[in-house]
């Protein structure tokens, strides 16, 4: 298990190198001039030349990449061409905000998703089942943009329960957390229901019921744990996506997270910033996948991380 862990961590290195090369090349394929974006419409060609030299954009591509890589390996990701702040400083400001929001929304998603999914599966074909699955369908289909503005209108503008937007105490996390969590909750609910239903049809469940076990014990001790593997996969994936920043929710709630920073940086052609953010996002995603893989073993002892 330990060697497996080390191997997976080492595998991060080629992944990140690949990501950084791909991002580097893609950014330069996109039309748009970082110097023009930094200097504004009314800058002269001489200013642009000056900025290009300053940003090192006048050098060849391999030279630019190696310079960047060399600095990045020394912990210097360069400076934002937009704010002129160091990339690591700007990302450092946003990451905790994104982590907080992700923690809240994944909690919302898992609690609502599991409860709805289990309820629906155990009351199969009842009104409750249909109701919650329709709700889940709506949850998947509702654009977070609309949901966010509606929640804001009701709970902030009308009822004044929560602030409209921004970052601050826990109250600032409720509306964006729910907006973000709603979609994931719906997916988790559906996966939980179908996976649990499949398990409930197995022979060992029938045996457990036949030997007179209480319904609760059957579901929570015998069925649920076996039904959880696909659920964990989905939760892990959703978690990864949420960590990559929720651009729309962050924009609607003016929340200073990584997603908004990434999109702003792309539209501004802020190359150093985009490269820095994507590297960090890629590392997070790979690490989450690793955690999910390790969880499988805990849930199902038959899974081995062998050599």
């Amino acid at each position, binding site marked *: 298990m330990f060697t497996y862990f080390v191997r997976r961590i080492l595998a991060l290195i080629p992944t990140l190198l690949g990501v950084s090369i791909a991002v580097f090349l893609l950014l330069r394929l996109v*039309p748009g001039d970082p110097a023009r974006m930094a200097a504004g419409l009314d800058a002269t060609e001489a200013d642009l030349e000056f900025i290009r030299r300053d940003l090192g954009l006048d050098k060849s591509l391999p030279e630019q990449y190696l310079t960047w890589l060399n600095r990045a390996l020394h912990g210097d990701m360069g400076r934002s061409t937009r704010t002129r702040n160091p990339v690591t400083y*700007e990302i450092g400001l946003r990451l905790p905000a994104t982590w907080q929001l992700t923690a809240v929304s994944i909690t919302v998603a898992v609690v609502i998703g599991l409860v709805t999914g289990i309820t629906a599966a155990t009351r199969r074909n009842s009104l409750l089942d249909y109701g919650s699955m329709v709700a889940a369908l709506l949850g998947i289909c509702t654009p977070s943009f609309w949901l966010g503005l509606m929640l804001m209108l009701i709970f902030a503008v009308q009822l004044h329960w929560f602030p409209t*937007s*921004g970052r601050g105490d826990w109250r600032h996390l409720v509306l964006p957390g729910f907006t973000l969590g709603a979609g994931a909750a719906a997916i988790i609910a559906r996966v939980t229901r179908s996976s649990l239903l499949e398990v409930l049809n197995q022979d060992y469940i029938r045996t457990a019921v036949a030997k007179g076990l209480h319904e609760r014990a059957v579901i929570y001790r015998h069925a649920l744990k076996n039904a959880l593997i696909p659920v964990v996969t989905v939760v892990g994936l959703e978690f990864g996506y949420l960590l990559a920043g929720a651009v729309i929710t962050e924009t609607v709630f003016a929340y200073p997270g990584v997603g908004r920073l990434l999109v702003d940086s792309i539209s501004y052609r802020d190359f150093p910033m985009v490269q820095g953010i994507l590297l960090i996002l890629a590392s997070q995603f790979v690490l989450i996948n690793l955690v999910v893989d390790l969880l499988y073993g805990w849930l199902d002892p038959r899974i081995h991380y062998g050599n």
Partner: protein
Amino acid sequence: MFEGLVGFNEKMEMQPMLAERWEASPDATTFTFYLRKGVKFHDGTPFNAEAVKYNFDRVTNPDNKLKRYSLYRIIAKTEVVDEYTVKFTTSEPFGAMLATFAHPAGGIVSPAAAKQGADAPAFGKKPVGTGPYKFVEWVPGDHLTVEKFADYWNPAQGAKVDRFIIKPVPEAGTRINMLLAGDAHFINTVPYAQVKQLQGNPNVAIAANEAIYTFWVAMNTQKEPFKDKRVRQALNYAIDKQAIIDSVLAGYGKLADSPLAPRVWGYKSVKTYPYDLQKAKELLAQAGVSNVKTTLWSSDSTEAKQVAVALQGQLKEVGFDVEVMAMEAATLSAERFKKPEENKSMMNYAGWSPSTGDADWGLRPLLSKESWPPTSFNLAFWDNPEFDAQIKAGLQTADPEKRKAAYAKAQEIVMEEAPWIFLWVNTLLGGISTKCDGMVIQPDGIAYLRTGYFK
């Protein structure tokens, strides 16, 4: 936070700020400013001629890589005459110099603070100016906080609230909700499509202010069919501008009767092309132009796309089959700034606000030969020696009357030759809580907050 030697009020009129008065030499090469006495920076150090010299030496030194180097590089020399007199010498005559000092980038920072922060990374610097509010903190992407400066030199115009917290909120619906919920007291801006949401609510009001933006469609005058002046004039007659103002801008705009907006210094009301399909068709027939296929570039903002589609529909009436290409901002600017040989621009919907508020910056970058892409923003690739001569004349002198005369003539030439379809000057809409007053959006689009107060 910062003030310049001169500045603009909320109507874009120039006002004395840190300089009480000034003189320019007749040939527009030396500019002398007599500074206000008893002004203090937020860090307590005194404001004087040395401080001014330090600021302009700093921005004119290319090694400092300051963003507005190009704006001030024309200053060859800054001299301290005495403690409260400072003299600038430019490398060539530059009649628009005064307006350049009024540009937001002309704000004077405390030399002591700037020296201290010289080695610190940008985020470590505390901006220190002379304005009624001083810097408290900036968290990028989240907020900027400023607070009242007790020792402000002009108590009558000093801070009326203790603190401003300024937050970037990209989504208009969110800004409006913040205002409605009382989480914000002022928002910049309210999109025209959402005006109705604020009207009729007793707690909020619209703070409208006429802009110095003019909007237009540049036609590539180096390519057919736009080489012919009659074609360009015909398209001016073919567009019902008022109908677009009433729909897309909710009525918040007026017809452009010059390439400059009325609040730009040097503006002259020349004429408008009335909506007249008959005349448009006649002119096109005279020019022998029919069934044209061409492209119209615009940004991909909602408003720009609505305008572009409206233009497309109206141009169809006179036999122009226009393909609208709405592009993302960076892509659009990359396409627009290509060299003339590679530039595929035919028609371009755009707007411009001269950040110095002066006719020179409202005309030269857009219409003079020297401003063809990639150098600047002459998207019409217009080349008119007569016009260029007037622009030059306007820079050769600092005499306001002579300058005005030159720019008046320049504007007349533009309106007659019609390198653009002239559209409108818009009004900028802020949203304000009825608990407050004194805040609007400046004609150049920046929020004007310094006079804000609670009723």
